[in-house]
């Protein structure tokens, strides 16, 4: 392995003259209701939406949508899964889970993205190894754009943070859109305020 | 207004009618036009091939032939771009500097300096596909480009619109490169031809009877492709249209 000091010294010797760091302004957000913008963006990225009255309805919705035999792993105490997950759960053990349930900390209207960290996921692999993801989102927890999301402190405290936008996708073969490339086949945002 | 006419080498050799039309057009607008007989070439072919130093001879001749003029006008955006931006093989004296900044492409000159509004002698009753060369578009900024968000404008169109009877078609990729690219046309012949064929097909499909451009090099390449393809389309330089050519 290269020596750290020698490595940095070589870079330092090669650097061009100082160029200033610009001030990045906050740009005006497009007009429109945040939730409406979020929904339009989410739809564009292949995500789905559902509306429920209470947290108890979520499990019923899942069973109706994915079948009564669906294996459910829930990272949020609001929804009961068919198996328990904790921070000590082995990631690979989620391989046979049909539906993962997780509450997002916030959403981004510009892109239809939802934000998670290890705190939300409990087991990070929950967002990816399961076949379908159900995301609880409080409509009051929406920011307008990525410029706003990246000014939040949430990124600093998280070991792992992710902006998830719709399900896993690819168009690598002839540009044909496939949902469920390596990750989840579907992602559904369920609007539900935080209790 | 005294103007020196710069006739690029390949126009001199293959398309004298474009040089003649440019001369006559400038005279119609009251310019006193000199044609310095010593001129040869701007040096672009050597410089674009990487041998910038070998362009020195041509650049020296150009600087000498056009010394002292306030306006040097040439019907070729790529040549004019070379003079303004890459004319570096010779010593940059004040005189050379003046020649460089006084060199205009024809459309630029008509639009920005002469403010040419009308061409009452002109009539071109055809469906026209306007082709703007990449030099004219992206290096001389004579029109907006589809990949940059901003105000839409076009100096060549502003001029041609004033010609009686002219109708414009809308090709699918109006500002994609046609594939001439100088020596590229020969060193990357297969790709160059494919690009030229695609360009011709685009204009033909849009219904163009003529492709009009301010750059004869692009037209030379497109015409070569079109004729080999037996495509039903013709080619003419903007100077000729603005000067009153009917076909």
């Amino acid at each position: 392995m290269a020596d750290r000091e020698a490595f940095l010294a070589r870079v330092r010797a090669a650097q061009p003259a100082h160029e200033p760091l610009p001030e990045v302004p906050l740009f005006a957000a497009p007009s429109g209701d945040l939730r409406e913008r979020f929904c339009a963006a989410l739809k564009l990225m292949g995500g789905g939406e559902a509306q429920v009255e209470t947290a108890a309805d979520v499990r019923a919705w899942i069973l109706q949508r994915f079948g009564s035999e669906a294996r459910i792993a829930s990272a949020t105490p609001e929804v009961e899964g068919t198996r328990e997950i904790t921070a000590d759960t082995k990631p690979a053990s989620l391989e046979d889970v049909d539906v993962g349930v997780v509450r997002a900390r916030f959403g981004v209207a510009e892109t239809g993205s939802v934000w998670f960290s290890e705190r939300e996921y409990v087991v990070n692999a929950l967002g990816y190894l399961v076949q379908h993801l159900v995301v609880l989102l409080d409509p009051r927890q929406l920011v307008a754009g990525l410029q706003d999301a990246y000014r939040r402190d949430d990124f600093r405290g998280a070991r792992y943070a992710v902006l998830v936008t719709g399900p896993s996708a690819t168009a690598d073969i002839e540009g044909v859109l496939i949902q469920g490339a390596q990750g989840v086949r579907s992602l559904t945002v369920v609007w539900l305020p935080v209790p | 207004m005294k103007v020196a006419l710069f006739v690029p080498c390949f126009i001199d050799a293959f398309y004298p009618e474009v040089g003649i039309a440019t001369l006559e057009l400038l005279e119609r607008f009251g310019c006193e036009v000199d044609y310095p007989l010593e001129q040869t070439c701007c040096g672009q072919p050597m410089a674009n091939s990487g041998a910038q130093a070998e362009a020195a001879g041509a650049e020296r001749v150009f600087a000498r032939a056009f010394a002292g003029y306030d306006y040097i006008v040439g019907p070729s955006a790529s040549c004019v771009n070379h003079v303004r931006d890459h004319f570096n093989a010779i010593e940059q004296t004040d005189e050379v500097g003046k020649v460089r900044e006084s060199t205009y492409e024809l459309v630029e000159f008509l639009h920005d300096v002469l403010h040419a509004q009308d061409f009452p002698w002109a009539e071109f009753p055809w469906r026209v596909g306007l082709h703007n060369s990449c030099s004219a578009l992206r290096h001389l900024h004579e029109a907006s480009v589809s990949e940059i968000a901003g105000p839409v404008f076009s100096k060549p169109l502003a001029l041609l619109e004033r010609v009686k009877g002219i109708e414009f078609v809308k090709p699918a990729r109006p500002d994609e490169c046609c594939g001439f690219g100088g020596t590229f046309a020969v060193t990357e012949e297969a790709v160059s031809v494919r690009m030229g064929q695609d360009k011709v097909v685009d204009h033909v499909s849009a219904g163009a009877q003529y492709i009009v451009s301010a750059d004869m090099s692009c037209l030379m390449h497109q015409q070569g492709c079109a004729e080999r393809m037996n495509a039903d389309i013709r080619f003419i330089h903007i100077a000729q249209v603005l000067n009153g050519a009917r076909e």
Partner: protein
Amino acid sequence: MKRVEHAKLAGAFLSRPEHVAFHDKRLWDLRSKRDAQAHAIPEWETLRTLASQIKAHTLSHLADYLDQFTRVAEANGVQVHFADTAEEHNETVYRILHERGMTALVKSKSMLTDECDMRPYLESRGISVMETDLGERIQQLDRQPPSHIVVPAVHKLRDDVAEVFGRTIGTDPHNNDIHYLAESQRMNTRPWFVREKTAGMTGCNFAVAETGTVVVCTNEGNADLSANVPPLHIVSMGIEKLIPRVSDLGVFIRMLSRSALGSPITQYTSHFRAPRPGAEMHFVLVDNGRAERLAMPEFWYSLKCIRCGACMNTCPVYRRSGGLSYGSTYAGPIGAIINPTFDLKRFSALPFASTLNGSCTNVCPVKINIHEQIYQWRQVIAAQHELPFVKQEVLKMAGRLLGSPTLYRGAVASLEGALRRMPNFMLYNPLNIWGKQRDLPHVPHTTFHAWYRKNRKGGGNGGS
């Protein structure tokens, strides 16, 4: 090393019209989608300027930012390694895996690992490497490099993929249904994520100095699988990926996917700052000629690149020649300006695989002056006597001819005579490259010069 003959390889690609037509249309479509995004955001051009300035600033203080990044990362519990060369990168990765008894590596897309030729290095030492990105996997199975940095198998049609998969992972070679093919790859790859003695590797789109965070953008979620299932996550990153602050991501993430695919964001934008409890995270920082390029006044701007591929999508030459004709991990316009630093002679044809049309420069989200660097590389290549097409002597002769009005006029006079005299079939012989698929210009009866002398008096300066 032997020169990559771009023109010849492009000719081979062009001999398959169905592939070319699709390739050109698909990538132009991405370019059009990019345009739509750019036009929909009023501040787009301002964002480009900001992105360019942030990158230029960072590169001008790169050592300090690398210092900050690595110290913070180590404080976060990440193990940091430095690799001067591609070989050192491969050795380091192998050592990390071998020390922990790993026998397989699942990885998401990383151009750097292709640049370092990591796969054969690891595989020859007993480590299986599974590319998890669909496009990269297709190329891995077909033993071809990726042809595009964002859509690695864009040069293939569904029948090609069906043939490759049929040959390698046991699918029905006559079933070219794209959903079937994609699902087959998903099922074939999936067991590897949960396999024992397996590590995960990702590349890096952005490395944030402020927090020691590595940002990875994918659509498939394969980076998140590779990083979050196995107990070991290795990040391969080029030193030019640094940006100063988390808030700067508000500029770059807005631009990356819009520039690459014309979609507002990738399906997954992942931020890795510290390992999971009980797991390991390693960052391998690679130079491999980047510091050398940083010291080149004409070319260091190329290090601003965020690997979006927009330049490839817009390049009319790339779209019709295919990425494999560039002979390198990096193809298209960015390839033309990066590759000569790796091997000038080998890649000396690439800066000439360009019409200098400049649309690449216009779509680049970080405002790299690509077409200007392409022009500059031509000067460097000529100065090093590595011109691929024409001998320096020929250009010297042309220069002398065009520098002498008398010689020039003589040549023009004989040229027209020659063209007028020779019958068509001789003009169209195989040696005449222009005339292979194009008609030659018609020969006029006079030059402008001769017409002027005959029809107008005088001439102005230096009349002869």
